[in-house]
């Protein structure tokens, strides 16, 4: 077939099948718009399902089970030393976890009448795009949604092509368990993957360029995690750059600034993610990609082109699947003519380490920078009955409230289950709840959620 023979006419063409893309497509279809998704892999789920959120959480669950079993020795339960088989683990991850969810998404798409076209989309103008690849065709659309996501960034200044240098996608494939692993980057990806490999038996060395782990995150929340990571990892080097990386025998030699040359079996580069907007043919549209390829959008996810919207990682930070999903739904509603807006106040962020770190809304340092009068509450989990029964008293729940009105502006939590607990914080911030609202809401006892109530109570007089 000659490319361009086939022309598909639709109301909405979504480019990219990740969380932002499928959320937009599903919402469009629900609102009666004829919608197709163009995805390079001809599948829905994107980086989140195939090489991000989901597989990493599956592996982190394994790490958590191993940690629990190890800790059980404290109270007299000993299963002996663990024996891990990588093949069943990989199979479980890719078939029972990722595969199951992928089949679910495909079924939803079918039920909503959303067609998924395989191939790479290139915009020809503001109303049409061509699909290159196995299913070449032209798609004419009334509206398009760019949801092409992001890619792991390479290590700046270090050019090396080696299978032993992995990005997060490669690391999640679990090629082996290296004896010595260097993790470059102390952000959430480096910490989560470092945790997985450390649990599986690697000696993990982590280097971070800035003076602390999880740069930008509230220090009170990072501290318990930093203490745990120092025990779990062989070494953590802060204020350290990697100035050189070369193959040495069967491994790699890394130059760590101020530390010296060290030998590793594998290196994980986790220094951030970059927009995937190159090659989309944006120059044929009025879409403007700004610094580092990010597409600028307004609160209705509109780009510089009246017919084209963009959602998710390709629109910049914070690069979170749940942000993309909300943007996708908003975009579907906007296209269908509804008065919707991506005006969310609370954007929860979760680091799925052990302990988990989660926060949303305005945190202490930002409030200080903004010169905003706030009152703070910190509830140490040492006083929590539930934390004691779990043998985990290292958690902390922190509230930031407006000094005058008592409105809850931000919530931060560190401890096991923080990622689940933050939902209440997000609800409080999003609905402009007052500390009194949370303090008088009955929280089940004994649960970790009581820590939010306790923190709120401490701000009542």
């Amino acid at each position: 077939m000659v490319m361009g023979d086939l022309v598909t006419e639709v109301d909405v063409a979504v480019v990219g099948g990740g969380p932002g893309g499928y959320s937009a497509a599903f919402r469009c279809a629900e609102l009666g718009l004829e919608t197709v998704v163009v995805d390079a892999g001809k599948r829905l789920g994107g980086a989140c399902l195939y090489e991000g959120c989901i597989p990493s959480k599956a592996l982190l669950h394994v790490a958590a089970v191993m940690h629990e079993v190890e800790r059980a020795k404290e109270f007299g339960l000993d299963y002996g030393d663990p024996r891990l088989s990588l093949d069943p683990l990989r199979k479980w991850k890719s078939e029972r976890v990722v595969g199951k969810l992928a089949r679910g998404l495909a079924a939803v798409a079918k039920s909503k009448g959303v067609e998924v076209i395989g191939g790479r989309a290139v915009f020809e103008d503001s109303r049409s795009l061509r699909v290159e690849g196995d299913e070449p065709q032209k798609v004419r659309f009334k509206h398009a949604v760019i949801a092409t996501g992001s890619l792991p960034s390479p290590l700046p200044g270090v050019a090396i092509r080696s299978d032993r240098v992995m990005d997060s996608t490669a690391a999640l494939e679990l090629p082996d368990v290296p004896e010595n692993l260097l993790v470059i980057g102390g952000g959430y990806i480096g910490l989560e993957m470092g945790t997985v490999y450390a649990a599986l038996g690697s000696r993990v060395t982590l280097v971070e360029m800035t003076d602390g782990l999880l740069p930008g995150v509230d220090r009170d929340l990072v501290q318990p995690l930093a203490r745990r990571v120092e025990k779990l990892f062989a070494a953590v080097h802060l204020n350290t750059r990697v100035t050189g990386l070369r193959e040495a025998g069967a491994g790699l030699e890394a130059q760590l600034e101020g530390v010296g040359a060290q030998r590793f079996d594998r290196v994980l580069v986790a220094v951030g993610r970059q927009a995937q907007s190159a090659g989309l043919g944006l120059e044929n549209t009025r879409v403007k990609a700004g610094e580092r390829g990010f597409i600028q959008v307004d609160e209705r996810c509109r780009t510089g082109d009246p017919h084209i919207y963009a959602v998710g990682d390709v629109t910049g930070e914070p690069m979170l699947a749940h942000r993309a999903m909300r943007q996708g739904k908003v975009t579907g509603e906007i296209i269908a003519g509804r008065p919707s807006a991506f005006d969310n106040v609370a954007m929860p962020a979760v680091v799925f380490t052990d302990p988990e770190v989660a926060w949303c809304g305005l945190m202490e340092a930002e409030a200080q920078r903004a010169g905003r009068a706030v009152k703070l509450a910190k509830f140490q989990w040492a006083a929590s009955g539930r934390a004691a029964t779990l043998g985990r008293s290292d958690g902390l729940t922190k509230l930031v409230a407006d000094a005058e009105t008592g409105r809850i502006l931000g919530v931060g939590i560190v401890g096991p289950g923080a990622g689940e607990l933050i939902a209440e914080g997000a609800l409080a911030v999003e609905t402009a709840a007052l500390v009194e609202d949370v303090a008088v809401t009955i929280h089940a006892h004994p649960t970790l959620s009581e820590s939010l109530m306790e923190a709120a109570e401490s701000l009542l007089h």
Partner: protein
Amino acid sequence: MSRQFLLPDLGEGLTEAEIRAVLVHEGDVIKEDAPLLEVETDKAQVEIPSPMSGRVEKIHVQPGQRVKVGAVLVTFADADGGGPSRAAAPAAARAAAPTPAPATSAPRAEGGPVAATPATRRLARELGVDLATVRGSGPGGRVTDDDVRGAAGKRPAAAPARPAQRAAEPAGPAKPLVQVGLEPPPLPRFEQWGPVERQPLSHLRRTIAERMALSAALIPHVTHFDKADITELNALILRNVEEAKHRGITLTLTSFLLKAAALALKDHPQFNASLDPAAGEMIVKGYYHLGIAVATDRGLIVPVIRDVDQKPVMELAKELASLAERVRAGKATLDDLRGGSFTITNIGALGGTGAIPIINYPEVAILGVARGREKAVVRAGQIVPRMMLPLTLTFDHRIADGADGARFAAGIIRRLEAPERLLWEW
């Protein structure tokens, strides 16, 4: 300096419009007259140009949203002095003027997002309310649904006392008509006499209902009846209709009516006016823009022909035909529909011997025309057949008396009865 651009008066009694497209983005630097928004009323879809040059600081509306006249559409930063005033039409100039923030507004002491639940924020978007200008009455200053409705000028919908059994279901959410002075008494329970069905009013129907009630309640109407002998005019039209058609002109009685009325208005300016009761003044217009009532399948629409006094009849005929076609196709622009100073309604095509129309507020007079028919008329002692056209001039008794109306009507009739002059007079 930042300035707000409000939805301008759309004319024709329209009080709201739907935003179809926003053609600029926040942060854009645009020039005066650059396309800003597309809005649609039930009558027309129009592009609203920017009233000034400057940077678009905030867009307060989005496609699909219904906004009221006076609602903030766009805030400009670094606005360029408002632009040369000559460029702006009266309505546009009014809209471009910087407006003080609404009375409910108060600069919010704290920064950050407005304290309101997502559901309330959605309501604000639906009602076109900028939350940042609303003072919250809820706990901790939270903006409640009622605060938003208050800012939108709506009262919270009171639960209507409705009999529980077998009442007809409301056709949709309650949207009370704007009331004029009187509180209508409660309706009886029609269900007790037989089955009934509730049907929602279309947007245009609502507008007509509200405007007619307003005019009828506000203006003391008085009507003068007369007849014009259009035998000669009819013959003139018949003589020329083929030739006109040849030149692409549909020659009709209405174009002569327009011309005759405009010329008579020049002699009787109080009928080309509006009353300002608050100021105790009459606003006499120095222009003669005449509205023509056009029946469409959606309802009555009154497009306006400008400067009727200055245009030859043939041109009026041409303009009228294309205007009526645009209106019936729903393609009239806002400028086609606003700025009228006097209205003519010709029900002749549908028959009838006369009708008393309601004045198109805020105008003060309207000419109603029924079907011209051959009648037995006495001329110089002889009974002769003449083509007689029944006319009704309805006017606002506050600005003129019966004798004035009679003289004005006579001025129209005199011109219709000397049609050759109409062809030359402009």
